């Protein structure tokens, strides 16, 4: 391709109009004329190689062809391994571990080779080009702008809403309910009253004895077995669930509780603090104390118990609660203490909840009393 240097100005000003039916014109001449008619000037258009079929060009063509073939070969590798390689999961270190990496590498190589082939074609083989297009920033004429503005404004005039106030009111009164009808099934279908029923969900957990026929609810492990005091060693802790059907499932997501067996001196401190508090008074059983595991900040289980400092840490946002001081928040974003579950031991020697939590469980909300 020959080098085209445009001697004229950028937008072809002053060039003679070209007769595109002239048989002497090359196809590129016609393309250039077409671009010019769209106010695009192809300023530079030159081959990246000297002459046709130069050594350099052949090399680039060879490389691109290689990339296309590589892409195909890698795609074949993908297909073959997809079909023959053992892929079903097996325990231990097996061949199937390599299935996903093989797919990734073969598909990745195939797509990258295809991508680089196309890119190389565009960047190395196609002629180097600089075109200049007019942005046509000149705005429409003032008359046109005025006409359009007035046409839009006239829409209102034609409807005459301004002159007919009755219509204005009628439209409002007529359409607003219809709009609400559109929203009604969505909102009405979705809406749930969080405070309905005798046992509003925000304020009751699985430890509430009322649904359990008034009997105190036992503290159980995840598998539903009850817990005796000697099951928790000194300084130890265990996550307990309400001993009711499905008590350990997500159906009672607000009920998981942490039962801690404090050391004697810590227990004394905790009891002193607890008895000084109107709500937590007499909630401990001997050296055992139970707090809600659901963080009062964002509802994650506050599950990291540091035995030495008696702190409970929530791993989600690092709120820390002081176990020996009514689970008061001492660091982090939580602003409210963990509610304490009043516990006792029943006649058979198992832990039970003396009552439901006396404070609201879980993340804070507007109407929490």
């Amino acid at each position, binding site marked *: 391709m020959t080098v085209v240097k445009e001697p004229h100005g950028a937008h072809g000003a002053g060039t003679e109009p070209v007769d595109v039916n002239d048989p002497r014109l090359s196809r590129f001449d016609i393309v250039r004329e*077409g*671009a010019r008619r*769209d106010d*695009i000037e192809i300023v530079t258009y*030159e081959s990246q*190689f*000297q002459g046709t079929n130069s050594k350099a060009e052949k090399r680039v063509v060879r490389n691109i062809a290689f990339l296309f073939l590589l892409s195909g070969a890698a795609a074949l590798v993908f297909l073959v391994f997809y079909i023959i390689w053992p892929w079903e*999961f097996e325990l231990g270190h097996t061949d199937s571990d390599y299935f*996903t*990496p093989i797919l*990734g*590498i073969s*598909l990745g190589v195939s*797509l*990258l080779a295809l*991508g680089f*082939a*196309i*890119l190389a074609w*565009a960047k190395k083989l*196609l002629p180097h*080009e*600089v*075109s*200049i297009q007019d*942005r046509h*920033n000149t705005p429409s004429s003032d008359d046109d702008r005025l006409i359009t503005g007035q046409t839009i404004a006239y829409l209102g005039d034609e409807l005459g809403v301004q002159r007919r106030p009755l219509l204005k009111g009628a439209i409002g009164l007529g359409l607003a309910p219809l709009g609400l009808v559109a929203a009604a099934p969505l909102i009405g279908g*979705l809406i*749930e*009253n*969080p405070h309905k029923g005798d046992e509003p*969900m925000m304020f009751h957990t699985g430890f509430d004895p009322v649904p359990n026929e008034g009997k105190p609810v036992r503290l159980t492990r995840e598998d539903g077995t009850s817990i005796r005091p000697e099951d928790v060693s000194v300084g130890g802790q265990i996550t307990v*669930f309400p001993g009711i059907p499905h008590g*350990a*499932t*997500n159906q009672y997501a*607000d*009920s*998981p509780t942490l039962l801690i067996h404090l050391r004697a001196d810590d227990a004394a401190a905790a009891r002193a603090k607890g008895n000084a508090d109107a709500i937590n008074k007499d909630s401990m059983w001997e050296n055992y104390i139970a707090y809600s*595991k*659901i963080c009062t*900040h*964002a*509802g*994650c289980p506050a*599950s990291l118990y540091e035995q030495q400092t008696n702190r409970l840490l929530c*791993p*989600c946002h690092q709120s820390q609660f002081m176990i020996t001081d009514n689970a008061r928040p001492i*660091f*982090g*974003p*939580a*602003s*409210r203490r963990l509610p304490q579950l009043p516990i006792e031991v029943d006649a058979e020697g198992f832990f039970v909840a003396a009552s439901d939590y006396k404070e609201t469980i879980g*993340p*804070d*909300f*507007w*109407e*929490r009393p």
Partner: protein
Amino acid sequence: MKRRKLDLAQVPANVGKGLDDRYKAATPLRGLLNKVFPDHWSFLLGEIALFSFIVLLLTGVFLTLFFDPSMKEIAYEGAYPALRGTEMSQAYASSLHLSFEVRGGLFMRQMHHWAALLFMAAIVVHMARIFFTGAFRKPREANWAIGVALFLLGFLAGFTGYSLPDDGLSGTGLRIASAIMLSLPVVGTWVSASIFGGEFPGEFIIGRFYIAHVLLIPGGLLALISVHLGLVFAQKHTQWPGPGRTNDNVVGERMFPRYALKQGGFFMAVFGVIALMAGLFQINPIWLFGPYRASEVSSASQPDWYVMFMDGLVRLMPAWQIDIPIGDGYVIPPLFWPAVVGLGALTTVPMFYPFIEARRLKDKRSHHLLERPRDAPERTGLGAMAFTFFIVATLSGGNDVIADKFHISLNAMTWAGRIGLVILPPLAYYLAVRVCLGLQQHDREVLAHGVETGIIKRAPDGRFYEVHQPLGPVDDHGHPLPLDYAGWVVPKKMNRLGALAPAVKGFFYPVEKPAEAPVSPGMPPVTAREEREEITSGR
């Protein structure tokens, strides 16, 4: 019957005629084929997001064929032995099935996840490019706002997406989402109860998130992306200043074939990188997290990276609870400020930035030429401030991991984040503005005096001075005539002016004879001028 001979020369005219007869498309089609696009590597960042989105659609459709958005509890009986017999939701079981018992399913899942991470990353980097170069200015304000909305939609798409497998990590995320809804004043409990269909977690949320994730949000993304690209097309792309480039033209290459070909190749390259990542790097190994249990969480529970800034803000928020002593008393929990007000402000206020800046500068003109960040120090400073804020917040989202790995007190990390969030952004603003001004000054210096050559001369009177190579014409005394700044790169090193000899070949052993200067077609070969002296150190 005699077969009509195909006249090859007539084919183009016939195609044009045929198209025009039917669709009146000859002229508009030509305009489309010839449309000029400016070229610069930084214009390709948005494309990465677009291509990732296409990969997301392709892989996402595959995943829907196997995923079951049901929260019914079943006992797992699949191929992964460690979880056999465990009670879990159907959604989690089908995600495990997809990972272990569908041929190539894990690969597709990882591809989907990596493409989502890349999508958000490309959006953020693309946004930074638009911001720092002033590409959002009139007439492109609406497209900037659409871009910010796309980030928010992508954020929601990501969150709903990683909630779907219903594993331990995604359940924890849902729990926090529910807490955020609860923190809304007045309506919080109603919103949470309505969205979850009762008490958390209920039995509906996965199904509802599923339809949002596969229909509503992608629909919104698709619509906004279409408008976004349509506006780029209609308003024509911005370009850097440079020779021949003005506010009224576009200098580049025509859309077909070269530009379109490059886009196609780039798409394949992005696709290939995602495939490599999906094959080689594990992402979200849900089988290790187990099913969601309200009582279980491990430390280092981090969301995907683009949600971490919010998690960080939530961690750093002091425990400031607002009590309203009316009636039984009402509460605004501390969670409300970072999670609702913070996220709301961070995703809406930036939408108005183009108007704020235009108003402040009283600038009503249309801008099609980009500005170098150094030429708008205050904007660059603001951007540096925003990024510092984002980075501190994001790092704080993983502060427990940092504390653990580097043996730093967790509380110290939180305090560092709190203080850093307040102190570092203004500091970043100050530094960025000073750096911009310094770079501006150096540009002007070089334009006025020329490039520093590194040659120190001693005058007969004993003075030392450095020789400067003027960039333009000189006056009678040999002093350079000051040049105007053109808004583009000023050459600051001699080798930028062609003073560098061709590189010596050989890495370990220099080849004795330096290679000849390569001959570039269209450019005159670089040859040393006769009169030029060798530059020596003067010894």
